[in-house]
């Protein structure tokens, strides 16, 4: 039986978050969902993918058109009752080569909200594993998903799509890594208790920073924050005395006054023998004097600088995305060739059967009529003769078909369809 790949789903572009959430599968219910999906007669294989940006059903179906309505129905059932509105406006459907392309693009993170983000591949693997455990993966989806994983790897290796941080705190860490080669011997000073500063300090800690000082105008808040992120609290009046110990200084105090000016930094640098310092001014208002950046061995980035680096990286990613689309195109073509070759094998078998059937019928007819006096030896010779004739007749077309499938698959579908029509192979 011929199988078709079908994808029905909705993503961050086609549907608002409320709609996506109403359809989303909680992890523990995926198995349940797969069982329900498999119950439809048209769905032969199925994988459910459900992340905060997309809910999709990937299936191998016996009848594409019927499968669409079945999967739509399935998603409608899944939808929480509180959203009475129909999903029809938000759903997209892909079939055949388009479905293959869509899945490859999803895996390669070309369809993601933040193009190039690396999480999607892991999520894809996770949902594929779940489907495999539930027994809803067969030969086609097995091959399709494994192909999509290697497409994602190829895109990651051959393009710079995943490089270049695009969030503020990862840009800051990225910059810090271009200045310092390790963080475990560095000291971070966090001035102010803004949310962004907290986040950035944690990010630096996850990259190895161990020593952390926290200061705030209200000492109690500094103590509380220090406790939360395993730092040591410092009184606000004292922070400039401790400044010489800090390699990374994060300003996030909120208030609009300049807390550290260039003269102070110049003095601090002398005290620490010109060891490099990195200032990050990430509050809404500036806490550090912009002239600090003019000093040698000191780098100052404020929130706007970080945003513009992130923006540049985003632009670069979209350039790389074009390269990635080329890779996807190649891979889709080769996958479609494989699908076609699947179709070709049963057609060849059917063709042989058809010829053999005719041969046998005609021999039986003749042996029962005009040739009934033949000896056993002559009968065997007749059998050999007709078999050889059929083999010779079929040899040309079959080897041509096989050759076609292995070289360029474009014509294979056409030939297969022609053979089916000409010899009436789908009669059963």
């Amino acid at each position, binding site marked *: 039986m011929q199988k078709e790949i079908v994808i029905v789903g909705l993503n961050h572009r086609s549907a608002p978050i409320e709609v996506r959430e109403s359809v989303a599968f909680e992890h523990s219910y995926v198995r349940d969902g797969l069982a329900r999906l498999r119950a439809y007669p048209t769905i032969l294989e199925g994988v459910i993918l459900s992340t905060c940006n997309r809910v999709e059903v990937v299936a191998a179906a016996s009848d594409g058109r019927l499968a669409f309505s079945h999967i739509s129905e399935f998603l409608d059932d899944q939808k929480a009752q509180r959203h009475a509105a129909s999903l029809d406006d938000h759903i997209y459907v892909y079939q055949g080569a388009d479905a293959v392309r869509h899945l490859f693009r999803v895996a390669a993170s070309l369809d993601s909200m933040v193009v190039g983000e690396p999480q999607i591949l892991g999520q894809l693997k996770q949902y594929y594993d779940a489907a495999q455990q539930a027994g809803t993966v067969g030969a086609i989806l097995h091959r399709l998903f494994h192909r999509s994983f290697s497409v994602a790897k190829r895109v990651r290796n*051959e393009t710079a799509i995943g490089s*270049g941080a695009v969030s503020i705190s990862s840009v800051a860490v990225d910059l810090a*890594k271009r200045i310092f*080669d390790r963080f475990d011997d560095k000291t971070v000073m966090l001035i102010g208790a803004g949310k962004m500063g907290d986040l950035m300090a944690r990010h630096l800690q996850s990259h190895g920073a161990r020593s952390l000082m926290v200061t705030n105008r209200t000492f109690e808040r500094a103590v509380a924050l220090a406790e939360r992120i395993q730092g040591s609290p410092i009184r606000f009046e004292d922070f400039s005395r401790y400044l010489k110990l800090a390699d990374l200084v994060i300003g996030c105090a909120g208030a609009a006054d300049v807390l550290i000016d260039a003269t102070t930094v110049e003095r601090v640098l*002398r005290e620490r023998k*010109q*060891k490099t310092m990195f200032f990050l001014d990430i509050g809404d208002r500036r806490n550090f004097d912009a002239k600090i950046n003019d000093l*040698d061995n000191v780098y100052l980035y404020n929130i706007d600088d970080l945003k513009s*680096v992130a923006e540049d*990286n985003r632009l670069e990613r979209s350039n790389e995305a074009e390269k990635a689309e080329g890779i996807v195109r190649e891979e889709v073509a080769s996958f479609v060739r494989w699908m076609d070759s699947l179709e070709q094998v049963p057609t060849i078998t059917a063709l042989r059967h058809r010829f053999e059937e005719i041969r046998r019928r005609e021999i039986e007819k003749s042996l029962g009529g005009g040739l009934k006096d033949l000896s056993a030896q002559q009968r065997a010779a007749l059998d050999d003769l007709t078999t050889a004739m059929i083999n010779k007749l079929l040899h040309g077309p079959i080897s041509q078909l096989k050759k076609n499938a292995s070289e360029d698959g474009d014509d294979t579908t056409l030939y297969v369809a022609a053979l089916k029509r000409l010899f009436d192979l789908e009669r059963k």
Partner: protein
Amino acid sequence: MDAIILKLTALIYLLAAGSFFHYLFRGETAARLPTALLLLGFVIHSIALASRFFQEGFAGVAMMGHALLFNGWLMVGIYLLIQIKYHLSILGGIIAPLAFLMTFAAFAVGKGAAEIPPALQTYWLPVHVTLAFLGNAVFALAFGVSLIYLLQERRLKHKKMTALMKRFPPLESLDRLNYMLLVWGFPLMTLGILTGSLWAGIHWGNYWSWDPRQISSAIAWLFYAALLHGRITAGLRGKKAALLTMFGFCVVLGYFLWGDALFPSRHGGRFE
């Protein structure tokens, strides 16, 4: 035969340079290919050098082309050693074209200066020349590291990130490597000057003859000594240290290339 090997060396260094640039600016694969090419160039370079030494003896280094060939060989060798530990492929992007220019110049310049008189051909010759050239090679690498530091520093200050920057090592590692090269290069240079002076003392009877090469080496030596002192005691580092390192090498290189032509001396072939 000799010339063919030499041209082959230059060609492979050129290929390595192209491959490094491809890696740096297009950058699809790891820097294995350019490093492998450089290593291959180094092996053939070694053969070319060995064949010269075999034919002409060590005294051939008095000739400009020969000296460049030997110096370039030391430079590539030290780079390859550094590469093992630091994976500083970007430095290869500077060393490979430099190695190409030096080997290319080696057969472009050809013979040049006169031969060293047999009386001078003692053990002092290889010892003095090798030490002095090792110092040069280490400072050439320090020059490359400093250049990379300045490029990276400028980008960070001007807040302009480029794809190329992602291949740059952190400033901290560059500065540390730069310091390490100074720490190695300075004693080598000192020994180069000392052995030369001792050799002169033994042969000519006076240790210091105000030979132009001696003077220029002394200037460069004082310069590097000040730099080292500043680094150790005054926290001289980063951009200033990189600039000074580059300047110091320019003094060494400038004299190496043109000094003997401008001021004929013992190093330039006047052995009296």
